[in-house]
């Protein structure tokens, strides 16, 4: 489901093509979803339209190595690469989930030169809704 954002000039253009190359985004949002087995990093603009994404799996890691912090920081580097080319200077980071990717991706983002404005944790927290899966027995 794409976000329906009304554009004034769409009638004249006739075609809603991807205007990826033309956008200059000085401020954006970086979403980091860090699970135990993988880390997915998505760079969007302030309204939520995705600019680019990368995950530990797409950065050349397979299997158990996707969950490691090094894989998370490699994914962060790949994801930010496109964003920096489009001129992103400041970013807010939204972190979801437990996992080692949280810390590693944050450090990679800070290292890359993008200014971190806020760090938020948006792990979904039910107000006692759905029944969670059964407890694992060890």
């Amino acid at each position: 489901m794409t976000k329906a954002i009304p554009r004034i000039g769409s009638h004249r253009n006739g075609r809603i093509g991807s205007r990826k190359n033309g956008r200059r985004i000085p401020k954006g949002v970086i979403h980091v979803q860090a699970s135990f087995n993988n880390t997915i990093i998505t760079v969007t603009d302030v309204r939520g339209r995705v600019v680019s994404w990368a995950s530990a799996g797409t950065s050349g890691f397979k299997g158990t190595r996707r969950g490691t912090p090094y894989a998370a920081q490699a994914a962060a580097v790949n994801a930010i690469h496109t964003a920096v080319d489009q001129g992103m200077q400041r970013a807010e980071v939204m972190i979801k989930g437990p996992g080692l990717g949280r810390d590693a991706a944050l450090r990679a983002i800070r290292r890359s030169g993008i200014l971190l404005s806020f760090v938020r944790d948006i792990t979904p927290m039910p107000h006692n809704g759905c029944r969670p899966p059964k407890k694992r027995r060890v």
Partner: protein
Amino acid sequence: MLVLARPPPSPPLNLSLRSPLAHGDLNPNRLLLLLPFHAPPNSMAAATGTRRRRRRSGGGRGGLEVTCMANQRRVRMVAKQIQRELSDMLLTDKVLQYAVLPEASLGADRYLSSLTTISDVEVSGDLQVVKVYVSVFGDERGREVAIAGLKAKAKYVRSELGRRMKLRLTPEIRFIEDDSLERGSRVLAILDRLKDEKKRIEEDDEQFEQSNISEEDEDDKDEPDERIIYVK
């Protein structure tokens, strides 16, 4: 040494576990199997000495000192499960969150000043001691506050873990600060900087060549020096 694949359903009293007292031969090799924090302080001295001291410390069981080493695979599974449970606790449990991030109690829990992650969990062979390596992202003060808060809540964490996981004996939890991620990040930053410098020097070389085609003698003298990068 007795190696168990899973803990036996009955309490260890009824098993034929060999205790040094029962068999009379105080073999020093067998005594060394007792881990230091199980044995009373003068266990080594009492190896050939009186048995009375150990009996007193054992309590009503007749002085039995029990040590079981679990299967390696099980140790790993328990470690992974403890990591999952502790990470979940850090995310959901209010008490722990207030301990790590004091301003969360005031309501500022959405915009974080520091982020705490559990990077590794090491479990001892007999599942009695758990070392939890915690990595904190943030400034110096945030890190101190987070680690101090966690260490203060160690007993609470242990009781919570016992409630969530079904283990025979809930292990003792020790929190250790882990700065390996920080060090790795520093090393990667230095490597990136070196790569950028090298690229910049190569680009300068190319520009130099293109701009000064006539002065080839000077180029030959300068280029070998510029290409060599001394990494200290």
